[in-house]
């Protein structure tokens, strides 16, 4: 399979005194959907951001075998890495179209890219002149996802991409992600709990306290099991609230 490949090697991230990620090596290959699971604060976001180049890190990042460690985020984005960051990382006082346009211009995409991105979710087209900041939480997330998919990337870094999205949209997106992976895009998802995404994940890593504690290559359910074993807590699917 002629998929793309993202590889991070010996990646470490520190915030001041605190270490968020230490010496992590992982690979995400086209054709598969790779997941990164771990509890809150495990360092998943730090890893994705470091791979994208927007937090300082030590270690090496390879895109299709090329060392891109020295590239700045824009250059990495132009080289084909795209990110859906965690939280509302958009420009609230810019309208929906301008939010997309800023990124399109930064990546030197054709004008049609913005149009296509608006068409990905009907609501965006409908609210194209609204300020991004007045959209509902899920609508904002759609905008962020649209923005990431706009550039036909080689590598997709998706940090809690499904947060705040309704099941209908989640299913749609899960399908898109799978088909993108099949087309050769290296997809790397980060989630504190896989939930429904279990079905789309092919392989993955369990990250605990900044270190990879398990690697699983046979599907989402196996990954979930490895995750539960690693942290000693059942995954939410089997939640049994106490006290009733």
């Amino acid at each position, binding site marked *: 399979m002629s998929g793309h490949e993202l590889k991070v090697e010996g990646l470490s991230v520190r*915030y*001041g005194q605190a270490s968020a990620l230490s010496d992590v090596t992982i690979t995400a290959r086209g054709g598969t959907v790779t997941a990164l699971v771990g509890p809150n604060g495990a360092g998943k976001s730090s890893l994705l*951001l470091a791979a994208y180049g*927007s*937090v*300082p890190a030590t270690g090496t990042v390879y895109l299709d075998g090329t060392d891109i460690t020295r590239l700045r985020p824009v250059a990495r984005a132009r080289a084909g890495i795209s990110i859906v960051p965690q939280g509302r990382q958009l420009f609230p006082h810019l309208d929906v179209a301008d939010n997309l346009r800023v990124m399109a211009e930064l990546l030197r995409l054709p004008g049609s890219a913005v149009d296509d991105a608006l068409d990905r979710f009907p609501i965006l087209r409908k609210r194209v002149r609204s300020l991004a900041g007045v959209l509902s939480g899920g609508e904002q997330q759609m905008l962020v996802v649209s923005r990431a998919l706009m550039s036909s990337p080689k590598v997709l870094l998706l940090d809690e991409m499904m947060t705040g999205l309704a099941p209908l949209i989640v299913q749609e997106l899960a399908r898109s992600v799978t088909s993108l992976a099949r087309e050769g895009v290296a997809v790397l998802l980060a989630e504190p709990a896989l939930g429904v995404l279990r079905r789309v994940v092919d392989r993955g890593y369990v990250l605990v306290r900044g270190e990879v504690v398990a690697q699983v290559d046979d599907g989402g359910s196996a990954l979930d099991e490895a995750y539960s074993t690693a942290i000693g807590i059942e995954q939410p699917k089997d939640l049994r609230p106490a006290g009733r």
Partner: protein
Amino acid sequence: MTTTISRPTVSSDRWDPRRIPGGGGLALGVAAAALILAWVGSDGYRQTLVISAATYALIALGMYVPYLMAGSLSMAYSAYAGIGGYAVGLISARTGLPLVVAWIAGPIVAALVAVVLGVVTRRLSGFFLAAVTLLFGMAFTAFLIDAESVSGGSGGLGSLRPLNLLGWTPSHYHVVVGSAVVVCVIAFLLDRLRLSPWGVVVRTMRDAPRAVEAAGVRVPVLNIVALALGAMIAAVGGGLFTYAAGSITPDTFTLNIVFLAIFMPLIGGAGTPWGAVAGAVIAVELTLNFPAVQTSGTLLLAVGVLVIMLVAPKGVVGYADKLRTRLWALLRKERDRG
């Protein structure tokens, strides 16, 4: 995310070496005050420096609660200090009341004015508040000039009576010591207030007013309380200066002092009220006692502020704290090795 990597942690335990909240700050503050008073001795000039520093410190401390804790920048502090000053002047010149009454009446009037202004501007925040209060400060000066029958007009009020505390008349040196004590007490109390539940609510108001409102505290009202408290403290400072200098005019407290009060907590260290005190001492040193030839004090201060903000972003107190931590870590290492 490079811009958000390091956020200052306002740890509630930093100034708590002996389990007395604010005790560490007090110990250091009192020690420094004692040193300064020893250095001053009977030198009239140095005594005046202490009075100036205490005045500046009180005005900056007045700003501490609303400005650094609650995040509302009121620029009407020239008026509040002025009210404190005029209370001393008026009670001395127009009434037979004991002069101490001025330090009760002045802060109360200042607080009332702050409340009225706060009510009128309650919907404003941030720079909108700054703009309106700035205009208020200017209008207050104009009022002092115009209301001659009350304020003595442009000539101001002078020839103050000496303070008489139950038959005891403090000397100038006593006033100097007293002012240092007042500053230390207020800084200590504010430090404790900062750590208290009240302080938690007020400090949360700055970054997350919606959360405070959703928790059941009316943000505009608490803001007004904070502003009133600040006005009271500033009025004490105004009264102190007026008493020590012996007179007050409409131009005594102007925009200058407001800017000074904005600078001082940051050069001293915004993490604790003691920073405002340290900032006042630095400001006095730079603008009045700096042995430079023909230099503008304002320039020295401005450059000083810039240098400090670049070298010690958490102010001198924060810097000293960092050095202390390093030193202790070093000592511990030495001890472990030895």
